[in-house]
């Protein structure tokens, strides 16, 4: 076996190390440039979703909830009075986790809107859950909801998307978590 030359061993290591350091430095610089727009965009988007699911409020205040099911909660205010809450909850659907934001109006106790934040469902099937034809079904509902198939939905029932019962069920589960969290807040408030 030929004797190993230290230069032969060192050079690859040094070159690789230099490449890693340079790449990391460049990435850190790009991150510095883009971190702000990304965070701003995310904030804008979630503010917009909040105003869609709880249109009656004028400003929103973040609440810290001691609830495992809810990842984020905002209190909606109008003229300094609480008019409702938005809850972000998730449930696992067919392709992965579905994240849902639910707005609940506390003057009526009804759901004021539901919006799907992220989903990984089958395009053309489960992904149709993001359409308003499906999410509008949740509006004005007040109690724990159930998914049904092939029938006219009665009160407290949600018509499943054709061919996507699992997705429909997951969205409903997430909404139910929000309803439960809302009821808990109301109870504690009394």
């Amino acid at each position, binding site marked *: 076996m030929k004797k190993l030359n230290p230069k032969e061993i060192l050079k690859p290591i040094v070159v690789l190390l230099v490449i890693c350091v340079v790449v990391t430095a460049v990435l850190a610089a790009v*991150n510095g440039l883009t971190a702000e727009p990304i965070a701003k965009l995310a904030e804008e988007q979630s503010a917009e979703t909040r105003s869609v699911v709880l249109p009656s409020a004028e400003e929103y205040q973040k609440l810290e909830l001691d609830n495992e099911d809810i990842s984020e909660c905002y209190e909606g205010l109008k003229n300094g009075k609480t008019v409702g809450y938005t809850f972000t909850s998730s449930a696992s659907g067919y392709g992965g*986790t579905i994240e849902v934001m639910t707005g609940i109006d506390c003057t009526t106790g009804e759901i004021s809107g539901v919006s799907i934040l992220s989903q990984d469902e089958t395009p053309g099937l489960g992904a149709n859950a993001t359409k308003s034809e499906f999410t509008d079904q949740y509006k004005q509902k007040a109690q724990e909801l159930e998914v049904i198939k092939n029938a006219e939905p009665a009160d407290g029932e949600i018509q499943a998307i054709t061919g996507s019962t699992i997705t429909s069920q997951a969205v409903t589960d997430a909404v139910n978590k929000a309803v439960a969290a809302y009821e808990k807040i109301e109870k504690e408030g009394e």
Partner: protein
Amino acid sequence: MVKQLVAVFLAAILTENYVLSKFLGICPFLGVSKKVNTALGMSAAVTFVMVLSTAVTYPIYENILVPFGLEYLQTIVFILVIAGLVQLVEIILKKYMPPLYNSLGIYLPLITTNCAVLGVTMLVLEKAAADPSYTYVTALVNSFGAGIGFLVAMVVFAGVRGRLETADIPNSLKGLPITLVSASLVSVSFLGFAGLVEGMMG
């Protein structure tokens, strides 16, 4: 807890099959599925590397990248960790477990650039971020299930391809096209598992 783990495991094999529904790891799926025994060897190696990489990258992400605000280095760190692990496993197997090396060793270098492995390590983190009940153990079970799902798809497909050898195929479709069409049919059969896991687990 156990119920959740079983559900995650079965879902990773059947409904979230990495090859047939997420299209990860298509190259080895089409390339080394001609014979059942190579298919088995390749998927065993993939499963092993998947679990090992998840075991290493998950704590790295949670304990090093997140606290220091370095999430953006995820891709580069993960790919280098996987490449390093594969090399290390190869050396260890060669030295201490020659029989295992002889049967799996040749598949190992192919795995570094297998998108299924990198995909698993990233997807489990995505799931963990969305679901607070998702732990390190769940992630490991999930990646093991993903590997077994890869194995099931490879072996089933190798069986289907065995049948093709004696079939009379139009000239333009010979080779890759007919392989892809058969893959499409196998994938149809996996669509039938929709809802199975949720149904079983209530």
